[in-house]
């Protein structure tokens, strides 16, 4: 199953896990599985229209999905989906 790599900022919303295995053959399906099982993370990743927030990026095989097929990007069973958000600390 594909795996979301969750940053420190958001692991609180997925029972403190830094990796969460999900079901789905596309990013959209994987996100749906993640946010269904952990509803409190949804608003931190997606806006009220269900679109990926613009300060959040997802990378599959080192490539940003925004430069691939967006949420229709296919993911394989062994893929790691890096979920990252802008952070401001300095």
């Amino acid at each position, binding site marked *: 199953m594909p795996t979301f790599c969750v940053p*420190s*900022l958001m692991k609180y919303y997925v029972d403190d896990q830094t990796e969460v295995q999900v079901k789905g053959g596309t990013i959209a399906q994987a996100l749906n599985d993640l946010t269904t099982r952990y509803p409190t993370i949804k*608003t931190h990743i997606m806006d009220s229209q269900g679109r990926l927030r*613009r300060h959040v990026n997802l990378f599959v095989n080192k490539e940003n999905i925004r430069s691939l097929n967006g949420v229709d990007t296919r993911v394989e069973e062994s893929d790691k989906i890096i979920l990252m958000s802008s*952070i*401001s600390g300095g």
Partner: protein
Amino acid sequence: MLPELSREEILRYSRHLLIPDVGLEGQRKLKDSSALVIGTGGLGSPVALYLAAAGVGRIGLVDYDVVDPTNLQRQVVHGTSTVGHLKVDSARKRLLDLNPFIQVEALNEPFTSANAMKVAGDYDIIIDGTDNFPTRYLSNDVAVFLGIPNVYGSIYRFDGQASVFDSKRGPCYRCLFPEPPPPGMVPTCAEGGVLGVLPGTIGTIQATEALKMLLGIGSSLVGRLLLYNALDMSFEFVHLKKNPNCRVCGPNADIKELIDYEEFCGVPGHDVDEGSAGASWDITPLELTRTLKSKNPPLLLDVREPHELQISSLPGAMNIPLGLLAARLSELDSAREMVVFCKSGTRSSRALELLVSAGFKRVKNLKGGINAWAKEIDTRLPTY
């Protein structure tokens, strides 16, 4: 013509001169170069120290803040002896002690749209050591307009990010983050904490990238983003590409001058009465003591993380962390008066906004949070 090195400098930089990729010419290049470090805090500390040690000829420091005890867990350019001093003065003194052969220019004011182009225009490279979104977007845009690299670093808890945004060769910060998060969605380190050594790691990486750029050696992080996690010691590199629709560095860029970044981000770029939700929504600690003695005392709602209650707490307070508040509103009685608090009033101000927008009207924010309560009412409680 590159500046010559004195005999003392040759001795000092011996270990650089021994590296073929640096050598005498490289060291002279460093002496001839300049770097503007924006922020002299967690990231700015190691960056400034290592650039000074390396012999970067002129280092600019921009910060408006003073040294605070809570800084010393990570801001290693400062010390206990400089608590209360201007950060730029504290850092300048330390850098010149480390290396008296360089120039250090200290600017004690916020880096804003009003001064940024003039300040940064005098430097070869910008190092982003800021701690807020408005100044990050400002630093990026200034770098793009000036055509100089912006060495990026950011931190939160155990996570660090680093890259080099050089719009002449690759993406800029806005290519990756076209918009900031909604106000309050991404906590600051003051709200969520940070492992003290984390900015040391990321800041040193920033210094490394800056030196490589100034020397013109190695492969930089242009077009790559480092995602570092200190807990599992992982270093992930992902590819970054220029956004063809970037509003600042794209071919059809429509932002051609600096904007109001605080308005863009919806948050201040520097401390502006933090801990206040606005006069009509605030209650001071003293006022709260009186209200708590009344016939119908308010509900105290603590929106901090559960582990913070071990540090200090108010008796009888209900704890719902801010991140979970929206999902747990049904547990609150909108007819009952409520006072929301957190550590210093920032998170509780956001909680108040959320509550008010959900129809709760009888809500107040404890101005200054439990830290203010500890200072003014119950000094047995520690501040943190």
